């Protein structure tokens, strides 16, 4: 008979084995991991200076020159007024600048050149910063113009590799630098693009964008990378579009439960184009069967059926639910892209939506308990601990099952 202490020790030995076995274990490292790091490190080392290249510069340089010219003219005017005996005779309301430009005054010419070249040499001069901030709305306008074209081209290349897309979902401020991204994408690694993007967006951003950036400045790198990587999922662009463009699902698991309604409404509206009647799944317009979208739809459908049920709703529910259970992985989870076994495992929220929808079906007699109960329990177990809203919804239904 073992004592409690013995048992505990045995268990501790067993856990120690885990440590011994895995302490030196090496996991496969990310592709281009060092290159990405190096790009970030360089950006950090050089600070903002490293981002001074590419297309935005001509505009900025032009503006710097213009600003310098204004400064010189104003200064020149001052000097001219001080030096000139006629100054008092000039009516004060009329622009001295207009006057000035018509007068041939030699002095301003030289300083103008000097300041110009100084500004070109060093973008970091306080005056340059001031100017670029002040003129940035115009800047944004100019650079934003090519954006639609870019969007089109990224859409065309949708099925391509992950990192090549920088899409509408990134962040408001990133829009400014989209053309840049498209440009650099062809030559450099995608990650470098990101860095350039981020910093350039920061520099040329409107004051609003700057403010929003500073809120998250602590984790800007993290957030941006995640957002970009996630936005590469081909579904996101289309989902955003289908959800009415207001989606907050730029990151994977951080859905809002109102997404259920949004996806439900937009998928229902496009039922004929999007619902694959042989796969019994919704394709969000990209040819991929996104688990999140189908989960959201099913949960939305459940919500709708709670108010009003029709035979066709029930039929659709059974089809999708049945198909989802078929595609459940041995670990109780689903893959991110339903028919792509190589895709990642879904996040807790997605899992929760499915679990919620299935458990509700069991509770309301839409699914056979015998057939589906295990699947639901399995899914519920796989979720583990959570406190997100979708998970609590699922929990409520699962509890009713007992």
């Amino acid at each position: 008979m073992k004592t409690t202490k013995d048992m505990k020790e045995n268990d501790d030995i067993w856990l120690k084995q885990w440590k011994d076995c895995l302490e030196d274990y090496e996991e496969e490292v990310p592709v281009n991991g060092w290159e990405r790091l190096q790009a970030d490190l360089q950006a950090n080392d050089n600070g903002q200076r490293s981002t001074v290249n590419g297309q935005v510069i001509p505009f900025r340089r032009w503006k710097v020159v213009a600003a310098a010219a204004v400064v010189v003219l104003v200064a020149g005017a001052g000097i001219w007024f001080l030096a000139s005996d006629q100054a008092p005779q000039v009516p004060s309301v009329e622009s001295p600048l207009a006057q000035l430009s018509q007068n041939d005054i030699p002095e301003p010419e030289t300083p103008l050149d000097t300041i110009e070249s100084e500004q070109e040499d060093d973008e970091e001069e306080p005056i340059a910063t001031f100017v670029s901030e002040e003129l940035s709305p115009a800047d944004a306008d100019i650079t934003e113009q090519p954006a639609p074209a870019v969007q089109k081209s990224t859409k065309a290349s949708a099925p391509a590799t992950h990192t090549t897309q920088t899409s509408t979902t990134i962040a408001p401020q990133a829009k400014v630098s989209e053309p840049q991204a498209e440009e650099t994408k062809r030559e450099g690694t995608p990650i470098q693009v990101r860095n350039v993007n981020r910093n350039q967006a920061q520099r040329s951003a409107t004051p609003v964008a700057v403010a929003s950036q500073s809120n998250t400045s602590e984790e800007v790198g993290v957030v941006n990378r995640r957002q970009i990587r996630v936005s590469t999922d081909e579904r996101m662009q289309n989902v955003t579009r289908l959800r009415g463009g207001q989606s907050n699902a730029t990151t994977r698991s951080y859905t809002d439960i109102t997404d259920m309604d949004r996806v439900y409404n937009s998928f229902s509206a496009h039922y004929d184009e999007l619902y694959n009647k042989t796969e019994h799944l919704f394709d969000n317009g990209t040819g991929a069967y996104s688990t999140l979208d189908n989960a959201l739809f099913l949960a939305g459908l459940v919500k709708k059926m709670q108010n009003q049920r029709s035979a066709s709703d029930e039929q659709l529910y059974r089809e999708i639910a049945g198909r989802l259970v078929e595609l459940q992985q041995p670990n109780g989870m689903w893959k991110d892209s339903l028919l792509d076994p190589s895709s990642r495992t879904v996040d807790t929220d997605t899992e929760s939506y499915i679990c919620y929808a299935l458990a509700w079906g069991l509770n309301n007699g839409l699914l056979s308990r015998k057939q589906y109960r295990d699947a639901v329990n399995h899914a519920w177990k796989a979720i583990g601990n959570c406190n997100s809203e979708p998970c609590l919804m699922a929990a409520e239904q699962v509890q009713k099952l007992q």
Partner: protein
Amino acid sequence: MDLRGVRRLEKQTLTEQELVEGCRRGDDVARRQLYERYAGKMMAICMRYMGNREEAEDLLHDGYIKLYGSFDKFDWQGEGTLPAWMARVMANLALQRLRKNDVMSQTVELENTAELRDDVDRPDEGPDIETIPKKVLMQFIEELPPGYRTVFNMHVFEGKNHIEIGKELGINNKSSASQLVRARAILKERVNEWRRQNGL
């Protein structure tokens, strides 16, 4: 890594101390070697904590950025202290992130307590894991529910006791202990299952 990179590394493999000094100076060769040499191990830590590749890769990247920027705070005290320090930085960053995702808040009553009782009633030494591929063991850990996984990692790999874990994660130390028990129960079950399936 391209061929040129390989040759360069072969030519001069830096010692641990040289790595530390080089990284402190911001030397690119040293930084690269720090990455090439330890990334696999660090990635394993990231995977153990985050449970999925995507978040682990993010963590690895950000962890390295943090490491490179923290060398002025690191005091090298002999062979082995560098990777140990790196592992701590990674683990702390992982915990920071997990806390941010509120991984520990949970509703205990919703959990299935049946199997836990089972495990307490019939304790055993635990199935032998040394014959199981490490990759499989890693996967078992990765597939633990996040809360269990976090406690398991902190207790088993960082040697923290439940009071320390509770404090760091903002949970009761009893909760930490019970999560470890549950993690252990799940792992045992999975190991047994694997052994059965593979005729062991």
